[in-house]
C-alpha cells in the first residue's frame, strides 16, 4: 500500500512538472512568435510589432543603398499594393526580383524594416516553375 502510494505521488509530481513546463512553453511561444503576414495584410500593422513577412520581390525594384538594399514586395501571387522594404545584412544567393522571400521585421511609416540577417529566399524549384506554366 505504502509503495503503491509512493508511486502515485511520484507519478503526479512528474506529470505536474511536465504540465507546468508545457504550459510555460505554450505561453512563451505565443509571446515570442511573430505573426506571419503578406504585404497586403501589413497595411494595418501595429508599429513596432514584429512580423514575418512573406512576399514576392517586385521587378526592377531592388536598389542598393549605402548600407543595404531597398526593394518592394507584393503578395505571393503577385497582387496587391507594393510594400517598400529596407534591409541590411546577408542577402542570400537565390535572392532576386520576382522571387518569393520571407523577412522578419517591423513596419515603420509604411516601410517594412527588415531585421539584419533574417532574409530567406526560397530555393527556386524547376518543379514549381513547370507547374506555373
Amino acid at each position: 500500500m505504502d509503495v503503491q502510494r509512493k508511486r502515485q505521488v511520484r507519478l503526479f509530481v512528474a506529470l505536474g512538472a511536465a504540465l507546468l513546463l508545457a504550459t510555460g512553453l505554450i505561453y512563451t511561444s505565443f509571446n515570442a512568435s511573430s505573426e506571419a503576414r503578406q504585404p497586403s495584410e501589413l497595411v494595418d500593422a501595429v508599429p513596432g510589432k514584429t512580423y514575418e513577412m512573406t512576399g514576392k520581390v517586385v521587378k526592377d525594384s531592388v536598389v542598393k543603398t549605402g548600407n543595404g538594399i531597398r526593394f518592394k514586395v507584393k503578395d505571393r501571387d503577385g497582387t496587391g499594393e507594393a510594400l517598400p522594404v529596407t534591409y541590411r545584412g546577408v542577402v542570400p544567393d537565390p535572392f532576386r526580383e520576382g522571387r518569393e522571400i520571407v523577412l522578419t521585421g517591423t513596419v515603420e511609416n509604411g516601410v517594412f524594416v527588415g531585421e539584419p540577417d533574417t532574409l530567406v529566399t526560397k530555393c527556386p524549384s524547376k518543379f514549381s516553375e513547370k507547374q506555373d506554366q
Partner: protein
Amino acid sequence: MVLCVVVIEHAFLTDDFSFNVVATHSSIETPAFYKFTAMWSSQEGSLLLWAFILGIVSTISLAATRHKLRDLVPWATAVMMGIAMFFTGLMLLGGDVNPFTTISPVPVDGTGLNPLLQHPSMIIHPPMLYTGYVSLTVPFAFAIGALISRRVDAAWIKSTRGFALIAWTFLSIGIILGSRWSYTELGWGGYWAWDPVENASVMPWLITTAYIHSIMVQEKRGMLKVWNVSLIVASFSLALLGTFLVRSGVLQSIHAFGDSTVGPYFLSLIGVVLIGSTWLIISRLDILRSDRRIDSLASREAVFLINNLLLIALCAIVFWGTFFPLISELLTGTRSTLAAPWFDRYTTPVAVVLVLFTGVGPMMSWRRISWEGAKRVFTVPLIAAAVAFVLLLLFTDAAESIWALLIFTLAAFTVTALFQETWRAAAARKKSAGGTMLASIWSNATRNRRRYGGYVVHLGLVVLLVGIAASSSFETKQDIELKPGQSAVVDDYTVTYLNPTLTRDRQALVFGAELQVDRGGKSFARLNPTRQYHQATDGSAPPGIASYFEGEATSEVGLKAGLRSDFWTSVEPNTDEFQRRARLADGLFGAYMRKKVLPIVQADPAKAETVSRAAENLLSLTTDKVIAGYNSDSIEVPVTIRVIVSPMVTWIWIGAVIAIIGALFAAWPSGLLTRKRGGKGRKAA
C-alpha cells in the same frame, strides 16, 4: 526497383531529355557526377530513391532474420511491402510524380541542375538522410509484426537493433553533412538555423536515440515494452513527416521546393501508421506489461528513462516550434512563427542536462547503485568538473555565457567518466588476463561493442556540443566595407582587401576579393571568397554578357578553419561597373549581328548553323575581352565583406566524426559476424 533506378540514371548520364525529369534537372553542360546526383534533386527521383533504398534494407533485414522469428517475420514483411507499395503507387498514380513521364517534343538540352545544388554534399547528403529514414522502417515493421503476432518479448528488438543503430548512423551522417554544407553557403544561417526541414531530420534522430537506449532496458530488464513500440512508431512517423515536409511546402523553409501534389497522400500514410499502431498497442496492452518495476531511481534503467524523457522533451520542443505556424493558425486564426532564439532558449537547458547524463548513464549499474559504488565512480569525474570550472573561470571568458560554462564543465565530467570506466574495466582485464593496457581496452571493446561504441558516441557528442556551445556563444560577426588596399580589424584579426578578382569559369562569371588576414602581426591566411554569376539557362534572357546576371548566383566562402577558431568570409561584389560595360558590349554586339550577320543568314538560310556557331564564339571572345579590360583597369569600388570569427566550430565536425565512428563500431562488424556465424552454424547442424 533496381531496374527503375538504372533506367533513370542511365537517362541522366546519357542526356536523354525525353524524360521530363532529366530535361528539367540536368543539361548537357552539367558535369557527370552532378548528372548522377540530379536524380534525387527532383521530387520524382527522390521518391524513387526512397523506394529503392527500402527495397535494399528490407531485403537485408529479411535475409538476416531468415531463420528466426518465424511467426513474426511474415507480418513485418507485409508492413514493409505495404510501405514500398505506397511509394510505388504514389509514383504511378500520384499525378505528376511519375519519374518515367516523357515529354514531347524532346528538348535539345535540359534546363540544368540548379547551381546551388551543384555541390559535393548533394551527392551524399540526401541519400544518407533517406537511408536513415528508410532504415527505420525495419524496426517499425518488426515492432508491428511483434504486436500482431503477440510475440512482444525482446526477440524482435534483438533482431532489429542493428537496423536502428544503422538508421541512427545514417541520419547522423546526413544531418552533419547538411549542417556542414549549410555552414559553407551564404544565407543558409550557418551550421544550424532551426529551419523546418533541419528540424524534421533531427526529430526522428532524437527519438531514435531514445529508442536505442530504452530497448536496452527491455532486453536487460523486461521493462518499457509499450514505451519502445511507441518510440519506434513515433520515430518512423517523424521520418515520414520529414520526407513529407521537404516536399510539401506546408511550412516556410529554404528547403521547401515548391508546393506539390503528394502532400495529402503522405498525410494519409502518416495517419494510417499512427492510428493503426496506436490501436494495435492498446489492444495488446495486456501482454505489454513490464516484467519488473524500477527498483531505484539510482539505477541505470531509471537514468535511461530520464534520458529518454529529456530526448522526448527536446523533440517535443522542436516539434512545437516547427509546427507552431500551423498550431497558432488553428488556435488563434493568425499564423505566427518562432525564430531561432526561441529554440535556443528551450533546447539549451535540456542539452546541458543531456551532457551530464551522457556521463552518468554509462557509470550507473543496473537495478541499483550502492552508495560505495557511486562514491567510487563519481569522485574523480566530479573533481575533474570542479577543476575545469575553476580553470575556465580563471583563464577564459567562458563566464560570459552561463550555459556555455555549464556545458564545458559537464563535458569535463562526462569525458573523465567515460575514460575512467574504460580504464577501470581495462585494469580489471589486465589483472585477470595480462597483456598491456591498450590490448586490454581493445579486447574489452571488441567483446562488448555496443557498450564501448556507445562510449565513443557519447564522447563524440560531448565534443560536438562543446563545439556548438563555444561557437554559438562566442561568435563575432561583422560586415565591413573596404576599398582595395584598405584594412579593418575584426576580433583580434586584421583583414586587408588586396584586390578584386574576376574570372570566367564554365558558365559563370566569378567575382572575388583577395583578402590578407593577419593575426598578431603575423600572416594568418590568404582568402578568396567569391560570388559566381551563372548564365541563365532557361532561355529567358537575350544572349549577351548581361545574361550572366539574369541567372542564379552562388557564393563561395573563403574559410580558414582551425582547431581554435574558424575565420569565415564571404563577399558581396560590386558589379555595377562591369554590368555597365557588359551592356555596352552587348549593344555593340547586337548591332553588329543585326547589320552584318543577319543579312548573310537571310540571303542563305543554309548557313544559319555555321553563322550561329561563329556568333557564339565571337560573343565568348567579347566576354573575355570585357573581362580583361575590366581587370586591367583595376577599378577601385568598395565591396562588402562579411566576416565571422567563431571559435571551435571544427570541434563540431570532429565530434560528429568520433560519434559516427563509435556508432559504426557498435553496429557494424560484430553484428554481421555473429549473424554469419549463426547462419553457418545452422547449416552445419
